């Protein structure tokens, strides 16, 4: 949950990078760590196994600028993607303000992506959070690999949409990043919402900051 400190004039928000093992969550944070000026970021903490797999979480605090005199500080976390670590993965979701789902585009990882997405829904609902109503975006990572599935297939499996029941939100919302596509749309008499998505090659940094900006902007807009 975002914490607003009127004494130090700071807004603190928590973003969590979720997704299947080896999908590239830690790589996203490493890229941000390497590119952001040391004045605007803190130390990166990685609780990992000897083989560099995330064991509990990675943590990186970054300042994204000042709004209305308040410093906006985002705490970025990754979860361990391996199925086995669900208990600790769930703990990291506590108090989350925004989520990035890092999907592995490789065809072979489709099942792992779907399983992880389902696990995210389940863990969120155990906390009473509704994934369709909090800032949430999907990053299709590893677009550089020859065995990357087409984005439309990934969309069909991972972002099929949810029913939009709130009458106030039943209007077409175009996706600013993908001309001709809509985030909220009417499909045979039903209103369907989708999470915004991006393509990325996290090892090269492509799409990493776009993803961070997209979700942190969504988080700040929930306060406006």
């Amino acid at each position: 949950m975002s914490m607003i400190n009127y004494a130090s004039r700071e807004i603190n928000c928590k973003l969590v990078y979720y997704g299947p093992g080896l999908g590239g969550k830690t790589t996203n944070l490493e890229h941000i760590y390497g590119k952001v000026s040391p004045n605007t970021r803190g130390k990166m903490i990685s609780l990992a196994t000897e083989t560099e797999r995330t064991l509990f979480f990675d943590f990186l605090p970054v300042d994204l600028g000042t709004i209305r005199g308040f410093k906006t500080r985002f705490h970025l976390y990754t979860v361990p993607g391996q199925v086995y670590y669900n208990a600790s993965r769930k703990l990291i979701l506590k108090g989350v303000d925004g989520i990035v789902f890092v999907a592995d585009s490789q065809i072979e990882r489709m099942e792992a992506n779907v399983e992880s997405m389902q696990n995210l829904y389940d863990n969120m609902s155990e906390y009473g959070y509704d994934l369709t109503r909090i800032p949430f975006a999907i990053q299709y990572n590893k677009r550089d690999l020859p065995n990357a599935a087409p984005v439309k297939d990934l969309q069909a499996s991972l972002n099929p949409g949810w029913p939009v029941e709130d009458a106030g939100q039943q209007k077409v919302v175009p996706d600013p990043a993908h001309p001709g596509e809509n985030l909220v749309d009417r499909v045979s008499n039903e209103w369907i919402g989708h999470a915004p998505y991006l393509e990325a090659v996290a090892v090269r940094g492509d799409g990493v900051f776009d993803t961070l900006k997209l979700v942190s902007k969504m988080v700040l807009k929930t306060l406006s």
Partner: protein
Amino acid sequence: MAGAASWSFSENDFKQIQQHLLAFLRDSNARCALLVDRTGQLVATVGDAPQFDSAAFASLTAADFSANDQLAKMIGEHEFASLVHQGQKESMFLADVAKRVILVVLFDQRTTLGLVKLKGKGAVESLTKIFEEMFNRVGAGPGGQAGPGGTPQKGLLEGAEDEIDKLFG
């Protein structure tokens, strides 16, 4: 609930919290006390300024505490209301405050675990009162949203869409 609600505290709340922490340090002879919220955000620090990265420290504290919460449940305890990590020279004592924040006390041989625990109990009680009052103020607590003095905080950034867009331009 859509997601986690936000919470906030005023300068006044902050001063009260600091006063209680300072009194506790004086009584216990501990070196430093930190308050960390359950999501790992640092709320306050008093005493000797820590030599380490306090944001990293706060996130590890919250993770440590929540992992131990789960361990408690597994062995049939409701919770471990406090934890102790004892080193050769430096030690730490952690205690739950109002289920929302964690009091972390750093201490060395100038005092004893017994004294820290004893004085810590009183500090936790008074801090719990302050936090509960804060949360009760028109929904500033879990699930609600309020700003300083209970004014709705929704709208803190109201009309700031342009500024937000510009920030991410």
